[in-house]
Each structure stands twice: as structure tokens, then as C-alpha cells.
């Protein structure tokens, strides 16, 4: 009799678990597949090491009875949460299940996410969220909205402590967008979208005709708004991107990112570096070529690639160690800094600083982009973010001036005063307050005006100015550059310098928090 009872109990549990695994049912799963999308469990199976997933809250259901919801109770309530491993590393995960009531965000969903957020923070392990939700569960009213708030506060508490990665794999609209926006990295798969107000509301309010994709698709957020750091053509690629990104990050802010077994000779010197900078000083070159030659082969992972392409940021490896790379991109807008580039760079500096990742900065910047649109848009406060972020950061910082370093941009881009540990320059560096022509016009206006041949005099003075300032030696002379190096020796120089700086500790004054210009 007792055995029968036990077997009944087991059968009940197994039946409930089977229902939880099926989510919204076989029909909904087929619909999800027909849309070219995977289910929450299929995504987690791709993300996590085989057999590593431990689920929590699989049998949780909502207790709302209004609007017929009492007839739509599904174990798990549209979200799968738990622990797992990625390449042997412990992670906390949640995946919204679109097959259950469109993945709509409920109080139960919130409770499950909050639980996993708390456990991730207490355990010091990364949190990865796979988002695919139609928005708040309207039937739950304000409870659903308050539920968002519970998640947001935990996002903020975990910010800079444990890596938080959001993958958008479907709709993410309204208040739901703020949780991914509060995390460290946002990856969007093709077909997904994020927006605060949808096309219908926009049509009603402003009369604009816009589709969900053109309003908040992956292309928009990776190229224009900068909300998303990375895009992937398929869901499988998005998941692969998470694994690759995680490889550069530590488990938490007290630990180091994993070092891969060095596979590229530390003393490798690529001769092509010595001829990378064009002879003509206004001729562009691609800084990515330099990055590819200096860092471990194939290790560069660029973030925000299409957003503010006049700056390049991303992770790479040097002798197997994770490094944050920041560079001006002379191939686009001559590498001038603007509002978007300032936001992109400052955000990346703070990310690397939070997770103990040393920074290497390549400088080739003629200055901040002039113009009313930039000034009206607040380029001053945006540019100040770069200065703030560099000064505040305490990780090892090395800068290399490859060509132009002019005026305020020279100061902002990791100059010695930004608490940079080592400042290198290539012989092609030009470090000056401003370009030769404007400088001569300011300094020698009367001299040129009174000359017999003003044009010849101006040319003569420009040549003099260039000879004086358009080289790295004046800066090295006054200690603003620690060493002028051959481009070819950059890799071994960086590896040796970082080997010393790896145990660097620098403290900031105690404070609640600084007031970064926003």
C-alpha cells in the first residue's frame, strides 16, 4: 500500500515535470520553431555544458484568476531558471519561454529571476539572461510592473560585481528593456527587437510609420543607439557569442579573467607594423590591422563595432591574458572623438576597470569633432566621461600614441595625467596643442601679415612648428612619454610591461559614488 502511494507520488511529480518541460505545449513549440526560433530549454541546452543544468522553480505557477488566467496555469510560468556551467565555469541563467503566454512577465517570473540574481550575487558568478517576452502580463496589473522593479534593483546591485549578460532573442518591449540595459553586455539575435514604445503607439502619438525592426531591431541598436554591444545572425551564434565574451571576463570583481594557455610567441614582432602608418599624415589606415598584429593571433573581439566606428573598443589577449583595447580609428572621421565615441570609450573603460582587465589605448586623434550638432548635443559632458573614466580606473593602463595626439583629445585619451602607468609613442607620433596651420595663425598672425611674402612666411613658420612639435621627442623630453618605441616592438613591450603591472593596486578616496558627467 505504502509502495503504491510512493509510486503515485513519483508519477505525479514526473507528470508535472513533463508538463514543465513542454512549456506552452507541443503546438506552441512547433509555432516557435516555425518562426525560426528555439524554445527556452533548447537555448539553454546550447548555452550550457552537457548535463550541467540544475533547474529551480520548474513547478511554480501564478495564482491569478482574473481574465481567465486560472485556466492557463503552466508549471514554470514562462521562465526557466537555474545554475549551469559554461566551459566548466559556474553561471546562473534564466530563459524566458515565449510558448507560455508569450513569455509575458509575471510576478512569478520576477520571483524566479530575483531568486537566481540573489544566488548569483551571493555566489559571485556571472548571470546570463535569455530574453524573449511580449512584455508585462497585463492581467496582473501593477503587480507585474512592481515585479520589473524588483529585477532592476538587483541588476543595479550586481552591476560591476558579477558579469551580467543579456541576450535578446525575441521581443523586449516597454519596461522590460531596462533590465538588459542595466546589464553589462547586450547581445541581439537577428529578428529580435527592443523598444520602449511600439510602432502602434508611435503611429498614434506622432503619426510616424515604423516597423518593429526599423524601430528597435538588432541593426538599430548595434549601429545607431549603441544599446546593444553585439549582434548575431542566428540564435546559435548569439549563444556562441556569449561563450566567447565570457572567456574574457572573470567570475566576479574580486577575481581575474581566465588566462588561456599562451599560443602566440610573446616576442613575435611583425615587421609590417613599421610601415603601417602612411607617409602622408592625412592618409587613413585601419587601426584594427595594428591590433591584429600586436595582440595574440585572432584574439580580438570587438564590441560596438558598428556604433561610433571612429573609435574601436574590444577585448583581446596578450600572452593569453585578457586585455581591454581602446583605439581611435583613423579610417573613419580621421579618428576624431564625438559624442557617441565618448560614450562608447568611457563605458568600456569602466567595464574593464570593474572586472580587473588591464587597458591598452592606441591614440591617433586630431581632436574632438567640431560643429554645432556636437556642441548642442553636449560633447563637453560626453567627452568629460572619457576623462572621468580613465582617471577613476585603477587597472593597469598603457597608452601608445601612433600618430596624432592633439589638444584636449591628447589629454583625454589616456595621457600620463589620466593615471596612466606607461605612455609609449611610435616615432610617427605628433603630440601638439593643435594642428600646425591654426597654431601658426594664432601665434604669428602679425608676423605673417607684415611679411613681404605672407604665404612664404606662413609656410616657413608652419614647417618650423611641425619640426618642433610634430614628433614624440618633445613630449618624451618633458616626461609625458615614457619611451619612444619602434612599432614592431610594441607586442613584447606591452607583454613585459603588463607582467610587471599585473599586481598593481591603486586606491581611490572613499566615497558613496562619484558624479560622472552624464
Amino acid at each position, binding site marked *: 500500500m505504502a509502495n503504491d502511494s510512493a509510486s503515485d507520488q513519483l508519477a505525479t511529480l514526473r507528470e508535472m515535470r513533463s508538463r514543465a518541460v513542454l512549456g506552452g505545449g507541443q503546438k506552441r513549440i512547433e509555432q516557435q520553431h516555425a518562426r525560426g526560433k528555439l524554445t527556452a530549454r533548447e537555448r539553454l541546452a546550447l548555452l550550457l555544458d552537457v548535463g550541467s543544468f540544475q533547474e529551480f522553480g520548474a513547478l511554480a505557477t501564478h495564482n491569478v484568476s482574473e481574465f481567465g488566467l486560472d485556466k492557463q496555469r503552466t508549471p514554470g510560468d514562462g521562465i526557466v531558471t537555474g545554475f549551469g556551467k559554461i*566551459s566548466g565555469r559556474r553561471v546562473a541563467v534564466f530563459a524566458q519561454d515565449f510558448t507560455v503566454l508569450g513569455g509575458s512577465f509575471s510576478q512569478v517570473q520576477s520571483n524566479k529571476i530575483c531568486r537566481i540574481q540573489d544566488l548569483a*550575487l551571493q555566489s559571485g558568478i556571472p548571470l546570463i539572461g535569455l530574453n524573449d517576452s511580449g512584455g508585462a502580463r497585463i492581467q496582473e496589473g501593477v503587480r507585474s510592473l512592481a515585479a520589473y522593479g524588483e529585477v532592476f534593483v*538587483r541588476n543595479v546591485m550586481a552591476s560591476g560585481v558579477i558579469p551580467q549578460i543579456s541576450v535578446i532573442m525575441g521581443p523586449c518591449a516597454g519596461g522590460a528593456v531596462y533590465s538588459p540595459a542595466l546589464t553589462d553586455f547586450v547581445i541581439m539575435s537577428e529578428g529580435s527587437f527592443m523598444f520602449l514604445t511600439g510602432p502602434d503607439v508611435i503611429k498614434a502619438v506622432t503619426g510616424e510609420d515604423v516597423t518593429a525592426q526599423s524601430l528597435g531591431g538588432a541593426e538599430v541598436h548595434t549601429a545607431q543607439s549603441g544599446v546593444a554591444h553585439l549582434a548575431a545572425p542566428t540564435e546559435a551564434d548569439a549563444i556562441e557569442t556569449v561563450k566567447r565574451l565570457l572567456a574574457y571576463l572573470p*567570475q566576479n570583481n574580486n*577575481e581575474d579573467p581566465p*588566462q588561456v594557455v599562451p599560443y602566440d610567441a610573446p616576442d613575435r614582432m611583425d615587421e609590417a607594423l613599421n610601415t603601417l602608418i602612411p607617409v602622408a599624415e592625412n592618409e587613413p589606415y585601419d587601426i584594427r590591422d595594428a591590433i591584429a598584429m600586436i595582440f595574440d593571433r585572432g584574439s580580438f573581439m570587438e564590441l560596438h563595432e558598428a556604433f561610433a566606428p571612429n573609435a574601436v573598443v574590444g577585448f583581446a589577449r596578450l600572452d593569453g591574458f585578457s586585455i581591454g583595447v581602446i583605439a581611435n580609428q583613423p579610417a573613419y572621421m580621421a579618428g576624431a572623438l564625438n559624442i557617441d565615441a565618448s560614450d562608447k570609450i568611457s563605458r568600456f573603460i569602466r567595464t574593464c576597470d570593474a572586472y580587473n582587465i588591464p587597458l591598452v589605448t592606441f591614440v591617433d586623434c586630431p581632436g574632438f569633432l567640431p560643429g554645432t550638432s556636437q556642441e548642442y548635443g553636449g560633447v563637453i559632458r560626453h567627452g568629460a566621461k572619457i576623462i572621468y573614466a580613465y582617471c577613476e580606473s585603477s587597472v593597469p593602463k598603457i597608452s601608445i600614441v601612433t600618430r596624432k595626439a592633439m589638444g584636449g583629445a591628447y589629454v583625454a585619451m589616456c595621457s600620463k595625467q589620466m593615471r596612466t602607468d606607461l605612455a609609449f609613442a611610435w616615432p610617427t607620433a605628433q603630440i601638439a596643442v593643435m594642428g600646425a596651420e591654426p597654431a601658426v595663425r594664432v601665434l604669428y598672425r602679425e608676423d605673417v601679415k607684415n611679411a613681404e611674402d605672407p604665404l612664404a612666411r606662413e609656410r616657413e613658420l608652419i614647417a618650423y612648428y611641425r619640426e618642433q612639435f610634430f614628433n614624440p621627442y618633445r613630449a618624451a623630453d618633458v616626461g609625458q612619454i615614457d619611451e619612444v618605441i619602434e612599432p614592431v616592438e610594441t607586442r613584447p613591450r606591452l607583454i613585459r610591461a603588463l607582467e610587471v603591472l599585473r599586481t598593481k*593596486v591603486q586606491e581611490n578616496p572613499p566615497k558613496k559614488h562619484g558624479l560622472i558627467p552624464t
Partner: protein
Amino acid sequence: MSNLGWGLQMTVLGMGLVFGVLALLWGLLRLVLRLEKHGARRADAAASSPAPEAAAEPGEAMDPDLVAAIAAAVVAHRAVRRREAAPAMRTFWPGSLIHASRWLGSGRMRQTRGFQRRGR
């Protein structure tokens, strides 16, 4: 005098016992050595007999294109594993401080001293 006799008796008995045990061990070692040599001879004989046809070199039977494809796949797989910092490609177990000096450990603690967990 009787003590001397008893002492000599004990000396002879003790040394005899020691030498007896040593002789026994020597005999055992000789036996083991002989058995081992016998086994090795049998193994040599088995190895020198003609191998069956099925035991041909695996590489010889494989198409060079297939070998090249497998080699390329292995290289690609290693690259993917490296990008993911898979366990075999890592120098340290996740969670470890790579340069776990007290200097760095205590320094990081000081850097984050203002931090308080506020999870509910």
C-alpha cells in the same frame, strides 16, 4: 664462561636467522626474474609472428583529403575551444586569482571596501 657460550650461541642463531631470511628473499627474486624473462620471450614471439591484414597502419588506409579535412577540423575545434577559454585551454581554474599575491588580494579588498551586498 657460560655467559660467553650463551652469547656465542645467540650470535650464531641471530646471524643465521638473518642470513636465512636473506637467502629466502634472494631465491624469491631469482624466481620472479625468471618468470618475467619467460613472459617477455613469449611476448616477443607473439610480436614477431605475422600481423593480420586488418591491423594495417590506419593512415595508409585513409584518403589524404580525409586526413587533411580531419586535421583542419581539429585546428578549427581547438580555435573555438581557445576562444571560449575551455578548461583544456586555461592555465588556471576559474575563480582563482592568477597572481594570487597577498598584495593584490588585500588591495582588491581595500578597493571594494565600500561595497555592501544588498540582495534581498
